[in-house]
């Protein structure tokens, strides 16, 4: 798979053979099953995957909030805790609200006081687009405003590495645009950004590269254009009992084909072209549905995973 970034730039983040399991009431959950990811300094990388893919667990290990069962993490050549101690890392975690009884400006100032060389507080407020609510108490903010304040908290240290775990989940469309404008501005300063998302569009629009995760593994890693083509953007489902799957997979605009009983499922990069070709060649196709491909479904097709956990992998260490 091609890499967008030239090899001369120093390594920002390096994840090697990371493995992490949890105990849960339903038995052990192998959240991350051996992943390797390298991010160059200055790169913006999307960690893309459906819910439960292991993105947040990976980020927790990257930030030193969880200890890996196996494998190593380095940030600019240092351990996560060393990198964090120097203020080189800023993060917006997936879950989390703001502490009460402070104004937005006070909260950002409080956090700035913890870092050796923070960004100017007013500059941070402007960058995050929250100068209008700077004098409001943190518990009086809307969901979108809260997310932007959390972004400011992540940015105020002027970190070299910014980690964002599904940052735009609580935002409306406008809020998202504003948020990513902020992040682009920040990335333009030569900063390294890693963000987790389950929106393919977000990865496509804002990342140089996407790392696809599914079921605790990296299933693809490359420029977002490549990833987008692999995942496909639409799915066509039709009742077509006797059609040959291989032939269907070769229809124009179709990436993969799959069968569920009498139904076939075509994952498409261009569903308009694909549906015309399908109807032309298979006039008997019935019950046709076209839908935006959920990442989950797209990934399952991509990984050839039928939804059952393959138990022979239980004893694995780091799987490439």
């Amino acid at each position, binding site marked *: 798979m091609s890499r967008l970034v030239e090899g001369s730039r120093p390594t920002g983040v390096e994840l090697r053979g990371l493995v992490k399991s949890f105990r849960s009431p339903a038995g052990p959950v192998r959240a991350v099953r051996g992943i390797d990811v390298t991010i160059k300094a200055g790169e913006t990388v999307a960690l893309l995957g459906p819910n439960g893919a292991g993105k947040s667990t990976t980020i927790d290990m990257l*930030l030193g909030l969880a200890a890996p069962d196996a494998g190593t993490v380095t940030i600019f050549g240092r351990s996560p805790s060393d990198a964090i101690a120097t203020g080189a890392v800023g*993060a917006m*975690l997936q879950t989390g609200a*703001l*502490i009460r009884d402070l104004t937005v400006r*006070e909260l950002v100032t409080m956090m700035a006081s*913890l870092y050796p060389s923070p960004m100017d507080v007013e500059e941070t407020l402007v960058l995050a687009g929250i100068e209008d609510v700077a004098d409001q108490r943190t518990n009086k903010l809307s969901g979108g405003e809260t997310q932007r304040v959390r972004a400011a908290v992540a940015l105020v240290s002027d970190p070299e590495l910014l980690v964002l775990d599904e940052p735009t989940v609580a935002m409306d469309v406008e809020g998202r645009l504003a948020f990513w404008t902020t992040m682009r501005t920040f990335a333009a300063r030569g900063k390294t950004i890693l963000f987790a998302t389950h929106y393919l569009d977000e990865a496509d629009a804002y990342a140089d590269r996407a790392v696809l995760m599914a079921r605790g593994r990296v299933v693809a890693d490359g420029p977002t254009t490549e990833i987008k083509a692999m995942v496909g953007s639409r799915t066509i489902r039709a009742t077509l009992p006797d059609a040959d799957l291989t032939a269907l997979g070769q229809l124009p605009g179709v990436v993969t084909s799959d069968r569920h009983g009498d139904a076939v499922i075509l994952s498409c990069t261009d569903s308009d072209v694909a549906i015309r070709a399908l109807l032309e060649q298979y006039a008997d196709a019935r019950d046709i549905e076209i839908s935006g491909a959920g990442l989950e479904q797209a990934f399952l097709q991509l990984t050839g995973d039928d939804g059952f956990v393959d138990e022979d992998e239980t004893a694995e260490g780091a799987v490439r």
Partner: protein
Amino acid sequence: MSIAYIRFELLRTFRNGRFFIFSFIFPLILYFIIAGPNKNDHDFGGTGISAPLYYMIGLAAFGAMMTTIATGARIAGERQVGWNRQLRITPLSARNYLGAKVVTAYMMAILSILILYISGTILGVRLSAEHWLEMTGLILVGLVPFAAFGIFVGHMLTVDSIGPVMGGTASLLALVGGTWFPITSGVLFDIARFVPSYWLVQASHVSIGGHGWGARGWITMAAWAVAMCFLAARAYRRDTKRV
């Protein structure tokens, strides 16, 4: 340690209305209700101490106990919104994090003690500077186990469960400690001598030239302080290890 960080911790604590009322206003009102009518009782319950002085220390101990234990509520609140995770990805070390919590707890405790001292002098309490200082010193040392207890429960319990635990513990400790009436004999006395709040209230004995704590008091307090600091450290480590 970051002074700015502690400044904002204090500011937050002050702005918390419920905390303010329970830690500062509540003991103050109780003091005037209980000690006011007994203003002229100079040998309260056979202790040799005047009622205004006895209750001044009793309620100062109670208020200081409440304010230090209340650290737990703030920690639990921060944990609930995931703020402790946010702090763990800053250069704030565990030592400075806990240090800021303890400093905040002590500042609030000192304030609640001062409020009671002023109220005491209004009701006629007069002590030498030496006695004021010695008494205050003993109370501040005696708050160590309570500050540690606050950190312990804050990292053990959730926001929902911590209220009853804190309120119940403080009420019971106040009762057994002698905040409401002197404990000088019987089963309650036997129990009281093993309880840290008892020794907090005993600090008032300084005023009659008596031994504030004596060896027994110091040993009891040291044991509680060590035990609570151990539990607090363990709870903090466990909590920060969990994902």
